[in-house]
């Protein structure tokens, strides 16, 4: 009941900027236009455009340090862009007041790379945490909801464990259950596959796809694991050097003519991204002093 009434509220406040909302295709959950972002005088994004359609799994790929996590933080309003718009459900995220932002975030779930479970609470309490904070539900209902979410990720039996007793894959699944606790309409995954063994990787891949379809959510995945991502994503953006260098469905992207995208998608050691860090000439470096 609660999430629905919240959704109504977010739509109401969304109508405040009706003009921008009208211009948008309402099928799009997230729209990013001409995004510029600089951190510590380092340019992270210059002119990024990304559209996330409702109900689909959209992946953002790119090499390490290309600002993928930063992108998620910009969508979540934890960072403010220098220029450009970030629209989530028609709301201009950077211009929301603190209270509006906190309300908007209840519609978002985010899964951090490390899982980010609260280390002083057990699995059950971790999943119950957002429910306890945001709702006044009776204890029995919280229990039912938490067990349902844990069942969805297959960890109902692990409810008494502490986060330190969980394996990496299990921790991520608990974090997923927690992110789902408030029934968000948008869920973001930050490197969900990094450092996972093949089995937990397979479990996560399946979970992300299944939950997206079953709960009618919109999913954004940020990752550099090409194989897993292409297997579940509906649409992929590849970003590098602060720009979108390629986009399309997994199939079209694999056929993409751009050399950079080819190198990234196929994991070639040498190409537009050189194997060698910039250095002076090798033979000069070795023999220069002797000759």
């Amino acid at each position: 009941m609660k999430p629905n009434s919240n959704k109504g509220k977010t739509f109401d406040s969304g109508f405040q900027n009706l003009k921008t909302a009208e211009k948008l295709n309402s099928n799009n959950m997230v729209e990013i236009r001409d995004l510029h972002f600089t951190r510590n005088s380092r340019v992270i994004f210059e002119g990024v455009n990304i559209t996330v359609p409702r109900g689909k799994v959209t992946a953002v790929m790119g090499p390490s340090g290309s600002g993928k996590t930063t992108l998620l933080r910009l969508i979540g309003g934890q960072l403010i862009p220098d220029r450009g718009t970030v629209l989530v459900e028609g709301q201009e995220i950077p211009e929301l007041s603190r209270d509006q932002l906190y309300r908007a975030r209840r519609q978002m779930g985010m899964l951090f790379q490390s899982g980010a479970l609260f280390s002083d609470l057990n699995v059950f309490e971790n999943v119950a945490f957002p429910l306890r904070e945001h709702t006044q539900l009776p204890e029995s209902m919280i229990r039912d909801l938490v067990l349902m979410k844990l069942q969805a990720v297959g960890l109902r039996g692990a409810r008494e464990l502490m986060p330190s007793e969980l394996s990496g894959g299990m921790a991520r699944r608990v974090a997923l259950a927690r992110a789902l606790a408030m029934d968000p309409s948008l869920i973001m995954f930050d490197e969900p596959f990094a450092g996972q063994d093949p089995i937990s990787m397979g479990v996560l891949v399946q979970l992300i796809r299944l939950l997206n379809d079953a709960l009618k959510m919109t999913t954004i995945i940020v990752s550099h694991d090409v194989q897993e991502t292409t297997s579940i994503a509906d649409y992929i953006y590849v970003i590098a050097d602060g720009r979108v260098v390629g986009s399309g469905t997994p199939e079209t992207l694999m056929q993409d003519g751009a050399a950079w995208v080819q190198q990234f998608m196929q994991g070639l050691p040498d190409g537009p991204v050189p194997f060698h860090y910039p250095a002076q000439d090798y033979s000069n470096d070795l023999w220069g002093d002797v000759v």
Partner: protein
Amino acid sequence: MILIKRMQLLGRSGLSFMGDIGRASLFLYQALVGKPDWVHGFGRLVQQLYSVGVLSLIIIVLSALFIGMVLGLQGYTILVKFGAEHALGQLIALSLVRELGPVVGALLFAGRAGSALTAEIGLMKTTEQLSSMEMMGIDPLRRIIAPRFWAGQISMPVLALIFNCVAILGGYTVGVEWLGVDTGAFWANMQSAVDFYADVMNGIIKSVVFGTVITWIAVFQGIDCPPTSEGIGRATTRTVVYSSLAILGLDFFLTAVMFGET
């Protein structure tokens, strides 16, 4: 040329210092201002009082006992030269209530509770627990920082009071039980010398100030630390160093204001 560079450096560090102070103040404002959640807030406060206050109790009590005993021993050997060993109670009580209780208590508190607070919050930041809380639409400043801050502020004077009492009893043990100072003279001299408002209350005020400063420094260093394991280590060290310096500096200032005119 070198002079200009030095000046630039000085100016830059001055500006960054001011920036730090400003950020720390804003942070405190954000954490504490706003409608408190009495129902949940009290439970969280109790939880933090446990980890900040109760867990510091053992080190406080043990140190107090030894400091009191040393004071008794040293005070006695000095006073006995002037035939004034009956003033031992006065010496012990005044030095404890006015200075040692608040100051040594605060130094121990900074080492035990302050560093633990910084490490805990720094770890929460490093493992993205704070970020994920923020993404859940829960303000980590109010949820995490505020109860820890209040717990520190409440625990410090309580611990300082316990420190004073235990140390006085330690001094009593050594002075009266072992070295044979007269019990009556010990307490009577103490009572005539120590004034409740001027000495005990001012000592409590001192420890409230110290408690505020220590927890403020500790939680700010935790929130402000770079999210790496090295960053946590440095922030923890900084908490202890900064709080110790702040305690001693403020102590001089407060002593000058409180006891300066008499």
